[in-house]
């Protein structure tokens, strides 16, 4: 069995066994041992995942653990269905884990093997989550990555804000995973199957009925909690604020967006057939959530002064765009969404590591506090990187986020969605352009009543540093700035690969043909892929894509300028502006009970709407 399929179990088993062995022998290995072992495992995951992307370019790999192949259409064991999109996301997890581990090398003063163990289990969970073809197994990997993430989030537990943020994260996500589990139980009760392909086949040709619709609602809500879609996003900002930045790179870069992709797979493989008659109802409900995420995330990101909270809300807004791409229920929309997950993931991970470097160098993570502090030697590279991330989010053609968004927007063909996407991109871009201008150029005022300023503990979740000492050493600066630089370059360059948009579309086409996958999974026979509908050769961004990019680029520069100098407006205008700002912020108040109420309201609304429209 020397073929590529042997790599499939290893992508999860290698990081896990490394973690277990680290825990077993940690006492007897030198201080840098865990660093090296974890780094080697993460590199191995990356290399294997990339090999799997290459190996599955024509036919997906179905791997049955324990060698239990299905008998007469009944899955006995658990399978991983490796196709290029899932393998790409596994590779993305690996790349960001490598960057994060390299960064941690110098970031923490003292960090024991427990940290590395948890990063490795988080990585293994993310890889399993993106490859698994079994609904319960997906839940297992979701749990594994969640448990590791809760602990890592509370790393600086002696700070009170950290306890609160990590606890909110744990409570809300546990509610989410339990909701997902309840949905899985309903599906199992109705179909007797946990395998996605088998679920899809056994629901084929019947009206969906109560259990399936309710199960779909619960599974959607459970996964969207992890993904951070409005109104399930509340934990996200609180958790991101307190997570140590190298781990935050994993959270923002992959963990959240993976749930969107897994949702897409669960929908197509398991439910798309049963709900085929109600595609419009599914699409409309998801689009409402997507638009709400884009708008709330974008506005809230603009209203934060703390860099990590800005990334958190930018993640919500970007995630909304990803969900919009998925919600179109077309191959091109899904292709754009997957591409956005990858490219935005690289940029967000870079951003988080960059913020960590800024916190360590300038002794703070709040843009008002850091006003003009970056105007000194060595400030050019961080400033340029921060602005580059901002421009990336603002959809500068022809780079990554632009191409992904263009795919989704062109697939939609709805002018209002183009406008919403442009607004969201403009705002998320403006946030980081503003931060770069304020910190590294000293533009704008030092005080701003519209964006929060928390005078105490502006670097929650981060270790204590002796500021500026290490930073003078070139080696230290290289280790701190190389990972974000590489990630930004990767995010930008990826879209220059010829035919990358077509590649993502054809990969998505494979996911949106569930019957073909199911036949391959359950009987081992792979029917030919039907041609992509409405395919006109190579993809080139259309008119609405260019309009979206132009709007968001101009908009982001204007918005950045406006949010720097808005206080020069008249007093009446200022007062009028501050009222809705205060209202929106008071909703994100950090109270777990309120967040849970929002969650329950979201599930109830989704459930009620789908109960009425999908039957």
């Amino acid at each position: 069995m020397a073929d590529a399929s042997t790599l499939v179990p290893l992508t999860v088993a290698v990081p896990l066994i490394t973690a277990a062995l680290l825990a077993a022998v940690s006492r007897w290995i030198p201080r840098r041992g865990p660093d090296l072992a974890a780094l080697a495992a993460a590199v191995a995951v990356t290399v294997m995942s990339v090999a799997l992307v290459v190996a599955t370019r024509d036919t997906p790999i179905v791997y049955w653990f324990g060698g239990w192949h299905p008998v007469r259409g009944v899955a006995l064991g658990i399978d991983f269905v490796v196709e290029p999109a899932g393998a790409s996301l596994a590779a993305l997890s690996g790349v960001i884990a490598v960057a994060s581990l390299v960064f941690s090398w110098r970031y923490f003063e003292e960090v024991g093997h427990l940290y590395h163990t948890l990063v490795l289990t988080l990585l293994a969970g993310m890889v399993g989550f993106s490859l698994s073809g079994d609904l319960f197994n997906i839940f297992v990997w979701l749990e594994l990555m969640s448990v590791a993430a809760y602990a890592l989030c509370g790393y600086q537990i002696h700070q009170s804000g950290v306890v609160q943020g990590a606890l909110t994260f744990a409570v809300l996500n546990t509610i989410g995973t339990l909701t997902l589990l309840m949905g899985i139980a309903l599906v199992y009760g109705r179909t007797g199957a946990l395998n996605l392909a088998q679920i899809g086949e056994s629901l084929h040709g019947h009206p969906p009925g109560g259990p399936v619709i309710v199960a779909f609602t619960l599974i959607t809500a459970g996964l969207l909690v992890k993904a951070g879609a409005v109104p399930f996003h509340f934990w996200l900002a609180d958790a991101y604020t307190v997570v140590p930045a190298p781990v935050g790179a994993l959270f923002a870069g992959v963990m959240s967006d993976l749930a969107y992709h897994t949702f897409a797979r669960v929908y197509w493989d398991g439910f798309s057939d049963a709900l085929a008659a109600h595609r419009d109802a599914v699409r409309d409900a998801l689009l409402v959530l997507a638009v709400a995420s884009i708008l709330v995330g974008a506005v809230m990101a603009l209203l934060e002064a703390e860099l990590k909270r800005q990334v958190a809300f930018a993640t919500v807004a970007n995630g909304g765009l990803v969900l919009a791409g998925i919600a179109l229920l077309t191959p091109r929309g899904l292709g754009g969404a997957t591409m956005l997950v990858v490219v935005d993931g690289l940029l967000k991970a870079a951003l988080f590591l960059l913020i960590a470097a800024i916190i360590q160098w300038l002794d703070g993570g709040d843009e008002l506090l850091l006003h003009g502090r970056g105007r000194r030697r060595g400030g050019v590279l961080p400033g340029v990187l921060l602005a580059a991330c901002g421009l990336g989010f603002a959809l500068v053609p022809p780079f990554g986020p632009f191409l992904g968004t263009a795919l989704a927007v062109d697939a939609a063909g709805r002018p209002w969605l183009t406008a919403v996407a442009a607004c969201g991109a403009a705002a998320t871009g403006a946030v980081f352009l503003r931060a770069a201008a304020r910190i590294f150029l000293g533009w704008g005022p030092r005080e701003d009543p519209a964006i929060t300023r928390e005078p105490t503990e502006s670097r929650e979740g981060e270790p204590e540093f002796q500021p500026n000492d290490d930073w003078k050493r070139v080696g230290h600066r290289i280790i701190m700035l190389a990972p974000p630089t590489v990630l930004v370059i990767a995010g930008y360059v990826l879209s220059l690969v010829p035919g990358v948009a077509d590649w993502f579309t054809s990969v998505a086409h494979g996911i949106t043909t569930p019957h073909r996958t199911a036949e391959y999974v359950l009987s081992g026979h792979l029917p030919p892929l039907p041609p992509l509908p409405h395919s006109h050769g190579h993809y080139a961004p259309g008119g609405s894509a260019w309009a979206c990019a132009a709007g968001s680029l101009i908009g982001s520069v204007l918005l950045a300028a406006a949010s720097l100098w808005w206080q020069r407006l008249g007093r009446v205008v200022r007062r009028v502006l501050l009222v809705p700002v205060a209202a929106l912020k008071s909703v994100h108040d950090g109270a777990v009970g309120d967040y849970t109420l929002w969650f329950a309201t979201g599930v109830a609304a989704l459930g009620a709407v789908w109960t009425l429209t999908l039957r």
Partner: protein
Amino acid sequence: MSRRRLRLLLFVPVAAVLAGVLMWGLVGLPSFGSPPHAYAAYLLKHEVGQRHVTNIPSAIVFDYRGWDTLGEELILFTSVMGTALLLRRGREDTGERPRDKAASAAVRHAGAFLVPVVLLLGIWTVSYGYLTPGGGFQGGLICSGAALFLWIAGSYRLHRGLTPTPLVDAAEGSGAAAYIATGLAALAAGQAFLAGFLPSGTVGSLLSGGTIALLNWATGLEVAAAGVLIFHEFLEEYIQTVPNPSPRQEER
């Protein structure tokens, strides 16, 4: 109206809608006593013939769906690592531990009697886990209960002394690693990951099951150690609240 009251007031209608949706889903499920699904029917018919194991849930847990169990075992492992990370970092080292000898002779004697009994029960539950109801998870947890009895019957020092952290740490890591290594061994033997590559033995004997027996023991070791480590961390939190008697009081 306080925020709490308002929240409750809003929650009631939301919960009502949610309950209605859930009920609608539950009502459509197959009713009690309906014939088993294809998967259950297949396993009931073929499991013993295929895997030579009389406890069918164990065969599902450690073989057919052994990959899930690997994930679940690692969830437990990760929770313990996470607990250790959070509590060890959050705790200040107090140095001297309090003397908390069990005061009552009845508790001491009953507890001391129960330590070997519980340990034996745990080991039995693990070792017969694939023949009769039981298994690595259940038995491992019972074994870790014996360590708790050491504290109840003896003292915190005894509990920590007889379960040295380096040893338990190593046991936990090796238990988890052994599970994965069994899967890798199947791969090395030219079969699928976690495939039952060892001979299945005679039905009903302790030597049945092949890899199921190995995975069962690996899980037992991991779960027992994980339980003990969690007790360590939580007891350490608790013990700090026990006032430390000053030496002068002890002399009296």
